[in-house]
């Protein structure tokens, strides 16, 4: 089934060390175009490092990252964003002292080109571009249902909205691939349910999603494909159903992280999935 799909992002034998620690160890993964692909694993498995490698914050020791047929390794983070990969951060990184509207406007920077001189002169091209930028920012804010908060400073927002604002900001870069680092972290049940709906909506609009998540209800509920990581290596991948029943996965979770009772959560996710999908 997977073979027929078009691969948007291809991670090939990716390796990254921190001192003696192999954070990511010969890691392969394909993210299919138009899919929601999840990366899960115990804390410290190396998931966020994979994201940082993709987005150009770290440089791998070996391996390749192919996005839409082009090699990404060696590109600066801003070049990766321009190439069409937008991300959110596990520990939110909003522009705290700017309003929600400005936060979202930032995403349009790499899609526009006005310079100092045209801005000072206020040329018609510059004004047209400004209007487009504002329109796009408005669209993205409305998409996450936050238009009413456009004038609010990011630091004054309640937590759930901060997560949504980061997603809106990433969408404003008009990405092909949206990389979400624990988007449901810290959200309550209602908020995560809303978030799932939002993520699915984004996917339906044609943007591929790659996410890290701890909340198994979310992962199992919306993913088309799940990869499991432990100690820098991929230990399993497949559909949500396959992964939940993979003995290696259960072992990885039960063996390393007692608080995170994967199996019960996974089963809960399965039930939820049963209710949610019609």
């Amino acid at each position, binding site marked *: 089934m997977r073979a027929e799909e078009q691969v948007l992002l291809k991670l090939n034998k990716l390796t990254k060390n921190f001192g003696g620690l192999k954070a990511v160890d010969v890691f392969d993964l394909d993210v299919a175009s138009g899919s929601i692909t999840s990366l899960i694993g115990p804390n410290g498995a190396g998931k*966020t490092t994979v994201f*940082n490698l993709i987005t150009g*914050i770290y440089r791998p020791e070996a391996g390749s990252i192919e996005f839409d047929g082009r090699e990404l390794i060696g590109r600066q983070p801003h070049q990766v964003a321009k190439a069409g990969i937008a991300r959110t*951060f596990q*520990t939110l990184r909003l522009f705290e002292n700017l309003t929600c509207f400005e936060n979202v406007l930032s995403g349009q920077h790499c899609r526009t080109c006005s310079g100092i001189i045209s801005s000072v002169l206020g040329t018609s091209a510059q004004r047209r571009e400004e209007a487009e930028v504002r329109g796009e920012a408005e669209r993205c804010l409305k998409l996450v249902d936050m238009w009413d908060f456009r004038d609010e400073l990011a630091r004054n927002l309640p937590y759930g909205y901060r997560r949504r604002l980061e997603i809106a900001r990433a969408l404003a870069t008009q990405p092909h691939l949206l990389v979400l680092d624990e988007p449901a972290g810290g959200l309550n049940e209602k908020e995560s349910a809303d978030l799932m709906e939002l993520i699915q909506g984004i996917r339906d609009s044609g943007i591929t999603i790659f996410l890290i998540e701890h909340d198994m209800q979310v992962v199992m509920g919306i993913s088309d494909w799940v990869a499991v990581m432990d100690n820098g290596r991929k230990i399993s991948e497949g559909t949500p159903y396959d992964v939940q029943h993979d003995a290696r996965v259960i072992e990885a979770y039960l063996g390393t992280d007692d608080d995170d009772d994967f199996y019960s959560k996974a089963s809960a996710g399965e039930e939820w999935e049963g209710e949610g999908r019609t």
Partner: protein
Amino acid sequence: MALFIEQLVNGLTVGAVYSLVALGYTMVYGVMRMINFAHGDFFMIGSYLGFTLVSSALLGGAIPLWAALIVVVVLSMAGVALLGVIVERAAYRPLRRSSRLTAVVSAIGVSIFLQNAVMLIWGPRYRAYPPWSVPSITWQVGGIYINFMQVLILAVSFGLMVALYLFVQRTTVGAAIRATAIDHDTARLMGIDVDQIIRLIFLIGPALGAAAGVLLGLYYRQIHFTVGWTYGLKAFTAAIMGGIGNIPGAMVGGLLLGILEMLGAGYISSAWKDVFVFLILILLLMFRPTGLLGERIAEKV
């Protein structure tokens, strides 16, 4: 070769003074992430206090010279340490939660205040330590001359630096200082009184600065209320060279800066020596952005 060794000795002497002052910058930075722009003025006030004490009847012959010198240094250190604690309480503590730039400007305000206070108290002109304050003994060692003050400066500064290093590395209070430097909140959870630690930092830093001030006053004999900025800038440069926040870094940075400066003065020209020093600083930071001994801080993403 004689020139080289002579400049090396001169460099070590000045460098030791820089190191003492740099320690004050680096300790405050390590614990509070703040550049204490007024630190150079603590140094300057130390040299003025020393001047007043030396010129007073103390050295009239009632007690032996060496005892009098110790009394002068200790009293100046105590006076400036007290001032440091007052400044921290009045001008820095209210700003502990605000942005770093605010704290920098507040420190600049303190610095301007202290400079002008000194100018009003001691007058705007150069003051000179009396010639009898130190014995004018010079030794000849293998073709180069070393005078009493150079030996005294090296002895006192290295003594103080070793004492500080042992204090920070080997005692419980030192461990508390190191813990506070890493994370205030966690340190507080471990039962450390962070306010107390910061107060202690503002005792030790200015005291070391004052000692350096007295030593430098005795060495060059001339003092002025603006020397705080000139030497403060050099010492701050030294702290950055070593890697700010790092105690051994400040010591190494100070000595290195002193030696570079004196070699620059000896081999290039004294008019260009500061240009030479700052060029080295810039080159160093281009290749090691966090100084010689500074840790590479990768931001957590």
